[in-house]
């Protein structure tokens, strides 16, 4: 596996060259803060939609979901359906008001009527927690993947990924990040489509034959075609679905893309294209690739180690499957797609984090809106490098962490902090700054705290005997707690500032839905 694959090396070099050209060209168009953060609001709905789909379809989702379906079958459905519902929430409830109220970051939306300095500091802190956790997961994934595919040392692989993404963001801003994301999304969807067609061809394009094959091959038989293998209790099922749905609708690097289009209608069109791309890719992953792997991989004993375990673990299912489908050439293609995916997602994440630092914490927070655009963009570039270096250092320190679990942690934090603040500030007049911060803090502390004392970290990593919180996914506790906290602390807030914030709701509503 560590032998250099010429197709992979060739395509890898081509991709890096192409992305650097995109970055160089984008740099010439990124002069103002609006160009840097929002690509001058000139991105079309189609391009932005494809970029949003690329932001969500990270290597962890692609490699992880195929691996999950390979072991747990039908239970992978939760990972396919929940983001679709998240996208529906973004489209029907958030895209239009977001585009009309915000400029560059999520905090712009909530700061419209809430006290700008404290709410920006809090929202930016939540964004940074989400971005750093997500970055570490992506960097660890990149390091492991490149180590496995190209034979590089883990440390070298993480540094290569870090330096490339810092270059994309600090030089090319949102425009470069968007086009790199589009390039990667097109590559990924094409590869998934090719893989699905080739798999279906092996089953005479008959789903009945494919699923009969699954029931005959998997050790659980037909049971793998129904729920209950991986998610064994209702709490875990609902909690995981809640984290995936609401967490998606609160991801800063996905939502800030809504600012790159010219108007609210294009924002909605972006969501349609994103849904088409994510929905079709995930449908092929769930209905064809994951189940196809169950039938096809066991026919190739060379992919299994001495203990009968898949070489490289379950995250390598799609990589091994690519070799079965299209030999060394397609194996090289899929390897590059997986690495390109990580680079593009990391670039989007770093941009979201750097914008939170420069726009929310520095320009609008400390500088109270009096900082020049030039200084703001300069701080974004510095923040990009600092965030990149932080991600690299943490990825080197946490090399052996469970990536898939870190991502579910990110979605749980996002669904328990960003999502409730955003949705209540848009639709509930009663929300006050104090309510948003105290309720959001409750969501943040509970989501992180319950994950730490849950089975994965408390027992599997820290080595304790029993978990203090029995479930892996705490969103069913932390999300309602955040909503209840925001409601409770807001109705108890009777100060003058609270009245002022509530009185601005009508003005916000009119601007959000373009009714002035």
């Amino acid at each position, binding site marked *: 596996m560590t032998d250099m694959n010429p197709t992979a090396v060739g395509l890898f070099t081509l991709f890096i060259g192409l992305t650097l050209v995109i970055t160089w060209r984008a740099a010439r168009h990124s002069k103002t803060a609006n160009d840097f953060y929002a690509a001058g609001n000139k991105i079309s709905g189609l391009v932005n939609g494809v970029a949003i789909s690329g932001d969500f379809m990270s290597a962890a989702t692609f490699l992880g979901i195929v691996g999950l379906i390979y072991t747990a079958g*039908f239970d992978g*459905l*939760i990972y*396919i*359906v929940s983001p*679709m*519902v998240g*996208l*529906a*929430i973004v*489209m*029907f*409830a958030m895209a239009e008001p977001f585009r009309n109220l915000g400029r560059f970051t999520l905090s712009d939306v909530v700061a419209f009527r809430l006290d700008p300095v404290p709410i920006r500091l809090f929202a930016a802190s939540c964004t940074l927690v989400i971005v750093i956790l997500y970055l570490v997961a992506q960097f660890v994934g990149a390091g492991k993947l490149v180590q496995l595919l190209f034979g590089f040392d883990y440390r070298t692989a993480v540094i290569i990924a870090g330096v490339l993404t810092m270059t994309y963001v600090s030089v090319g801003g949102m425009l470069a990040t968007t086009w790199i994301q589009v390039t990667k999304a097109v590559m990924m969807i094409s590869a998934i489509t090719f893989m699905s067609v080739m798999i279906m061809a092996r089953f005479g394009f008959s*789903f*009945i034959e494919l*699923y*009969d094959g*699954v*029931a*005959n091959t998997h050790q659980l038989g*037909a*049971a793998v*075609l*129904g*729920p*209950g293998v991986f*998610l064994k209790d*209702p709490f875990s*099922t*609902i909690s995981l*679905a809640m984290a995936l*749905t609401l967490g998606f609708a609160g991801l800063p690097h996905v939502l800030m893309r809504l600012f790159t289009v010219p108007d609210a*209608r294009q924002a*909605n*069109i972006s*969501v*349609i294209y994103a*849904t*088409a791309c994510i*929905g079709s890719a995930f*449908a092929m992953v*769930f*209905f064809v690739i994951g189940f196809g792997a169950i039938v096809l991989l066991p026919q190739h004993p060379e992919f299994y180690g001495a203990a009968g375990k898949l070489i490289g673990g379950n995250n390598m299912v799609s990589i091994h499957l690519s070799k079965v489908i299209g030999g060394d050439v397609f194996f090289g293609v899929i390897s590059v797609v997986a690495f390109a995916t990580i680079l593009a997602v990391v670039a989007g994440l770093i941009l979201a984090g750097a914008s939170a630092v420069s726009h929310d914490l520095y320009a609008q927070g400390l500088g109270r809106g009096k900082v020049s655009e030039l200084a703001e963009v300069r701080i974004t570039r510095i923040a990009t490098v600092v965030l990149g270096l932080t991600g690299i250092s943490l990825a080197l320190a946490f090399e052996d962490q469970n990536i898939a679990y870190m991502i579910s942690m990110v979605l749980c934090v996002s669904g328990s902090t960003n999502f409730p603040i955003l949705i209540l500030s848009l*639709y*509930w*007049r009663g929300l006050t700054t104090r309510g948003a911060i105290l309720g959001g803090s409750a969501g943040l502390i509970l989501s992180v705290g319950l994950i730490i004392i849950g089975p994965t970290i408390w027992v599997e990593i820290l080595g304790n005997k029993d978990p203090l919180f029995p479930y892996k996914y705490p969103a069913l506790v932390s999300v309602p707690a955040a909503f209840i906290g925001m409601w409770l602390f807001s109705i108890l807030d009777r100060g003058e500032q609270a009245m002022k914030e509530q009185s601005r709701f009508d003005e916000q*509503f009119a601007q959000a*839905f373009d*009714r002035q």
Partner: protein
Amino acid sequence: MTLVVKNMTRHQKLALIFLALVCLLDMLLLGVFAFAPSLYHLPLFGHSITLGIPLALVFMCTVFILMIYYVLSQAGKN
């Protein structure tokens, strides 16, 4: 909240109805997944394919169709 709904245009109310519909369908799908999983194990056409698989596809298509209808109706509004 009542006031917010009262102030909404027809198009915004449509968004609210569609959102409620998607959430309701998702709750149904998840509810069966969590509380009555045996229903999704029902085999179809005398083969191994189970009821859960086509239902999932129908759900995904429904969400997508509602979103397309919403954007098209927005074009009509403008």
